[in-house]
C-alpha cells in the first residue's frame, strides 16, 4: 500500500514537474531568454508521463517536439534540458539545434527532426536491433494525428507489423496539426484504426486520464517485451497553447479550450489523490516546492552556461572526421 501511495505521488510529481518546467519556459521565452520556437505540451502531460513511466534506461524513445515531459521522465538532467532550450554549450546538442531536436542517447532519448513521423522508421530500426540481439527492450515512437498522414508512418507500421517488432507507436491526437483540424487530416475518427491494416492492435484511450494511459502503455510494453509485436495507442488529448508560442490558435474556439481544461490531467490526478485519502493541499505545496527548486536550479545553470564559440559550428559533424584541406 505504501508503494502504491509513493507511486501515485511520483506520477503527480512528474506531471507537475513537466508542467512547471514548461510554464517557466514560456515565461523565459517571453523574456527573450529562450529564443526560437517554443512548442508547449501543456495539457498533454498524462500522455508523456503515462507512456514513459517505468521504462528502463535501455528502452528507446523518440519523443515529439512538444514532449518535454518524456525527457524528464526518462531521466534526462533538467539542467541540460534548460541549457538546450537556451542554445547553450552545455545543452544536449551543445547549441547546435533548438528545443527538442537534441537527444540524449545515454538515457535512450532520440532527438527528433522537424519532419514529423520521420522518427517512426528510426524507432523501428532500434526495435530491429533489439530483436536481432534478443534484447527485451522496447522502442516507443511518438507522433501526432497530423504526421500519421505521412509516408514514413505507413512504411514504419508496415515493416513493424511484418516482423512483429518490439515497438509501440503512440499517437498524441490533440486534434490540430498546427491549425489543420483532424477532419481535414484523416477521413476516419480514430488513427488507431490504421493499425489493423498493418496486422497489429490499435487502441484508443483518453490522453488526459493518466490511469487510462498507464493501463494501455503497460499492456503494450509488456506485449512488445514478450515478442507479441507492435501496438498503436491513440491518446485523445489537447494542447492548451498554440502550435508554438507565437501561434494565437485563433482557429479554435474558447469554448473548446475551456471544455478541455476542465478535463485537465493534473486536476484529475489531484482528485484521485484526494479520494485516496491524501491531504491534497499539503501534497501540492510539497510537490510544487520540489519542482520549483528543480526548475529554478535548471534556469540558473542554463543562464550561467556559456554560449558555444563560433568555431564549434564546424565540430561534431563527423565521428571520424577526414581533414583533406
Amino acid at each position: 500500500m505504501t508503494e502504491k501511495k509513493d507511486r501515485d505521488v511520483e506520477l503527480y510529481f512528474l506531471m507537475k514537474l513537466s508542467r512547471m518546467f514548461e510554464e517557466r519556459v514560456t515565461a523565459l521565452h517571453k523574456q527573450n531568454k529562450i529564443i526560437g520556437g517554443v512548442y508547449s505540451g501543456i495539457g498533454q502531460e498524462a500522455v508523456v508521463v503515462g507512456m514513459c513511466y517505468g521504462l528502463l534506461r535501455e528502452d528507446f524513445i523518440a519523443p515529439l517536439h512538444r514532449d518535454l515531459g518524456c525527457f524528464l521522465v526518462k531521466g534526462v538532467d533538467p539542467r541540460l534540458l534548460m541549457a538546450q532550450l537556451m542554445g547553450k554549450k552545455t545543452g544536449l546538442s551543445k547549441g547546435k539545434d533548438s528545443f527538442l531536436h537534441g537527444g540524449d542517447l545515454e538515457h535512450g532519448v532520440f532527438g527528433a527532426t522537424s519532419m514529423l513521423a520521420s522518427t517512426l522508421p528510426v524507432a523501428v530500426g532500434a526495435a530491429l536491433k533489439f530483436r536481432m540481439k534478443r534484447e527485451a527492450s522496447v522502442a516507443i515512437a511518438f507522433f501526432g494525428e497530423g504526421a500519421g498522414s505521412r509516408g514514413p508512418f505507413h512504411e514504419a507500421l508496415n515493416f513493424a507489423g511484418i516482423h512483429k517488432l518490439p515497438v509501440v507507436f503512440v499517437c498524441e491526437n490533440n486534434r490540430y496539426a498546427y491549425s489543420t483540424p483532424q477532419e481535414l487530416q484523416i477521413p476516419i475518427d480514430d488513427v488507431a484504426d490504421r493499425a489493423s491494416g498493418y496486422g497489429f492492435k490499435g487502441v484508443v484511450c483518453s490522453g488526459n486520464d493518466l490511469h487510462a494511459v498507464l493501463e494501455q502503455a503497460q499492456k503494450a510494453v509488456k506485449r512488445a517485451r514478450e515478442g507479441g509485436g507492435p501496438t498503436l495507442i491513440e491518446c485523445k488529448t489537447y494542447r492548451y497553447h498554440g502550435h508554438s508560442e507565437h501561434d494565437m490558435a485563433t482557429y479554435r474556439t474558447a469554448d473548446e479550450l475551456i471544455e478541455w481544461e476542465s478535463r485537465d490531467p493534473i486536476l484529475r490526478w489531484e482528485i484521485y489523490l484526494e479520494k485516496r485519502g491524501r491531504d491534497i493541499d499539503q501534497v501540492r505545496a510539497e510537490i510544487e516546492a520540489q519542482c520549483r527548486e528543480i526548475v529554478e536550479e535548471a534556469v540558473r545553470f542554463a543562464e550561467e552556461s556559456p554560449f558555444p564559440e563560433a568555431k564549434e559550428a564546424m565540430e561534431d559533424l563527423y565521428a571520424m572526421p577526414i581533414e583533406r584541406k
Partner: protein
Amino acid sequence: MAVVTYLKAISDALREEMERDENVFLLGEDIGVLGGAFKVTDGLFSRFGPERVIDTPISEELIVGAAVGAAVMGMRPVAEMQFMDFISCGFDQIVNMAATLRYRHGGEARCPLVIRGPSGAYVHGGLFHSQNTEAWFAHVPGLKVVYPATARDAKGLLKAAIRDDDPVIFYEHKFLYRRIKEDLPDEEIITPIGFARVAREGSDLSMISYGATVWMCLEAAEILAKEGVSVEVLDLRTLAPLDRPAIRATVGRTNKCLVVHEDHRTLGIGAEVAAFVVEECFDQLDGPILRVCSEDTHYAFSPNLEEFILPNTEKILTKARALLAY
C-alpha cells in the same frame, strides 16, 4: 591472387565484413533469396540467414530510417538501394535524419551506416535507372560520399565504409559491375576514405574524374600518349570530402585541368573542383578549366539520345586537345 569483377569485389567485401563483425547486416529490396537485382548479395542470404540479410518491402524511407535506428543502437547496417535513382525516396532520412544526427546530439551519437547501390548510365536504363545522384549528397554536411572505379577500390572502400562511424553513401557503377576484372590479392584490402588516386601519371594535362568515366579518361590518355602528350588521370574515389591536396598536386604538376564526370554539368562535382582550383591554384593554371559532363537533360533512353547526352572517349579527346593547344 584471384581475378574478380567489380561486382564480386563488392560482394566479397560484404561477406568478409559480415563474417568479421556480427553487427553488420544488410537490408534492402530483393537482396535475400534473389541475391539482389544485380546479384551483388548473391549467396549471402544462404550464408547469413534472413535476420542479417533482410528483404524489405518497397519502402526506401523505412530502409534508411530503420538503418539509422539500428546504427545509433550500435549496429552496422548496409542498406541497398535497388537503383541509386530510388534514393530520392529516402532523401529525408538521409539528409535530415542521418546527416544531422551526430550534430544535433551534441557529438554524443554515432551513425555507422552505409547506403549503397548501382548508379549511372551507359546501359540503356532510361530516365529512372541511369541517374547520377552523388552531387546531391556531396552537398550535405555530415555525409561521406564514395565512388570507386576499380574492383580493388570497390572492395577496399566498401570495407572502409562499413567500418566508418559516419553515414557513407557508396556509389557503384552498374556499367562497371561485370566489365572490370582485376587480380586482387588474397590479403585484406582496406582503402581509406578521403583519398584520391593517381590512376595514370603525366605532365601535360590532368583529367580529374571518378566512376566509369575514369576508364574513358585512361583510354583517352593512352591515345594522346601516342601523339606525344602526357596525361595524368586523377580518380577522386571520395567525393565528400574531396581530396583537395591531391587536386592541388595534380594541377601543380600539369597546369591544365580537365574535369570529367557522368553527372550533369550544372553544379556537378566538377563545378566544385573547378571552383577550388581557381581559388587555390589560380597561378598554376596555364589554361581554362574545361569540363566533360552529361548534358543538362534527363538520361534519355533511345541509343542516339543517350550517346549525345553522356561523356565518351571522343568527347574527352576533343576537349583535351583544345586545352592542350590553348
